């Protein structure tokens, strides 16, 4: 019984209720709070121990690197360590902003991500189409088959792209030549890079992306459809006026989450698809950080560029979330 009472006390979230319980010794409040915690801890210390591995992980591999971000404002020397290296302020940022490639990299990053974001409706449309199919083998098979590419690794995906688009032996160019066209150097032509990147991503993610929308569509009240049928609404009208509005909250939240990954999207794939001939369009901020930081060892400079990217990303996420909250009921926070 005593255990139960303890629980009631802890469940109270605000201080004022506690005050009400312990009015007489108000000045001693901090001490009792500490005592409460001590008691709670001695009873539940194993629960606190459960947290330890995960919290140490987050501390060491997430918070220490955050502390390490300060090298973006320093002239980092490995021998002096992060703390010991001299501060130089915004020099690295200025160097980056003034460099001739700054505009190109920023432009490439933005265009690539906006292009990808523009295809955001495709899985929604495909989910609406799948939803109209009767439950049965056809629906099941098309779902199973279109989900499958999701499990292919980036390396294999890019390997397939390179093989298919090869100028001499590739499937696509064979087909182009067969219909009387001329072989296209897809992989070394900067104009093609974005299309290849974005559409290969769609190939891989289209089916998988429908899962959440299909679940949301399964939750639509069937009575709405029945009522609309009685009123003589066609299939397309019911989709437009019942299904789409029903899944809109899901759509908004997923859109914001997509923005949250905006800048980071697909960096590992870009790195694999990149070559010296298409770098005009394939150089993005993240690949540049990798090159200058890890390949050339300019740790400070690369950290500054990475920090610039994170900052841009956070500003974007907060702004979009703010707009979503103002214009609709749905937002992340």
């Amino acid at each position, binding site marked *: 019984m005593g255990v139960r009472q303890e629980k009631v006390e802890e469940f109270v979230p605000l201080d004022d209720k506690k005050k009400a319980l312990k009015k007489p010794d108000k000045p001693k409040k901090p001490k009792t709070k500490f005592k409460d915690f001590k008691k709670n801890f001695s009873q539940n210390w*194993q629960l606190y121990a459960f947290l330890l591995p995960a919290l140490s992980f987050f501390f060491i591999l997430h918070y220490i690197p955050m*502390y390490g*971000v300060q090298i973006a404002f320093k002239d980092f020397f490995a021998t002096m360590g992060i703390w010991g290296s001299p501060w130089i302020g915004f020099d690295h940022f200025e160097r980056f902003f003034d460099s001739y490639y700054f505009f190109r990299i920023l432009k490439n990053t933005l265009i690539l991500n906006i292009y990808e974001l523009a295809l955001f409706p495709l899985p929604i449309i495909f989910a609406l189409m799948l939803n109209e199919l009767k439950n049965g083998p056809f629906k099941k098979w*098309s779902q199973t088959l279109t989900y499958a590419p999701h499990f292919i690794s980036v*390396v294999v995906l890019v*390997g397939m792209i390179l093989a298919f688009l090869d100028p001499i032996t590739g499937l696509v160019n064979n087909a182009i030549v067969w219909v009387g066209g001329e072989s296209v150097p897809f992989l070394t032509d900067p104009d093609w890079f974005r299309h290849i990147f974005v559409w290969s991503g769609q190939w891989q993610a289209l089916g998988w992306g429908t899962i959440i929308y299909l679940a949301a569509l399964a939750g639509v009240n069937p009575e709405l459809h029945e009522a609309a049928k009685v009123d003589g609404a066609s299939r397309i009208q019911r989709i437009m006026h019942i299904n789409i509005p029903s899944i809109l909250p899901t759509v908004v939240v997923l859109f914001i989450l997509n923005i949250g990954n905006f800048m980071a999207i697909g960096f590992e794939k870009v790195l694999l698809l990149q070559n010296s001939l298409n770098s005009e369009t394939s150089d993005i901020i993240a690949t540049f950080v990798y090159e200058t930081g*890890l390949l050339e060892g300019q740790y400070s400079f690369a950290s500054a560029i990475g920090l610039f990217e*994170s900052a841009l990303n956070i500003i974007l996420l907060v702004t979009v979330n703010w707009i979503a909250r103002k214009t609709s009921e749905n937002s992340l926070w």
Partner: protein
Amino acid sequence: MKKFGLSDKAFDIINKILVAIITIVILYPLIFVVSASISDPSAVSTGRMWLWPVDITFDGFKLVLENDAIWLGYRNTIFYTIVGTTLHLLVLLPCAYALSRKELKGKVLIMWFILFTMLFNGGMIPTYLVVKGLGMLDTMWAIVIPGLVGAWSVLVARAFFQQSIPDQLVEASKIDGASDFKIFIRVVLPLSMPIIAVMALFHAVGLWNQYFSALIYLSDENLYPLQLILREILIVNEASASAGGGGGAGGPAGSAGSFVEQVKLAAQVKYAVIIISTLPLLIIYPFLQRFFVKGVLIGSVKE
């Protein structure tokens, strides 16, 4: 509206046809890869093979299976996947369970501590410096540790524990005198098999498919995971072949033929390698599909 003219039956048929076309377009590259891996390479490179295998030969697979690097990569990847997934569960599950219990104090603060890492992180270079500082470069720990647990998994697992573990059950075991540790092992875990399967599967697939940590943290070729070996076979060689030419070939006329043969065989090897590396996932996928789908849905409930 014009749409009225479209009868529902016509809509049904058109919709079915469109879904069929999309499914075929998505499926076609996969069939092509399978067919190309067992077809005569010259039939593939000239376009004679475009759907079903032509002049079936298993030379590509033979070459791949004779390649020690691939076997080594395979072994390493299996090892990393098993160790990484086990550690993932060992760290994730207790933490998510503790955070689902109401007797734990300071939950809000702890959740913020974890969720903040979703919003902001140190970035590639500072993380690299930490991994380096911990002496993990060129060890398996560099593959397993940096992505050990994500804030997202903690959220999902915690939501599962909150929804599916009845509070009375835990309370009752406590009154019987069981410790939290015992309750977790004997009562909670047996009830949590779905979430354990989902979390393990997602993490294992991620580990199996990742190449980037290996690329930046490993330089010892004996530690290379499969994906890094694949990268060399599928991508690096391709780039050097198209950009730099054939390397150290001998006489001009005599070796030209064998060089062409080699290039063709290399293409077949690529398709075979894709099959061999993706096979385990494709075999288990149909059986586990519902778990994966479940994982996505548990995750989305949280948002």
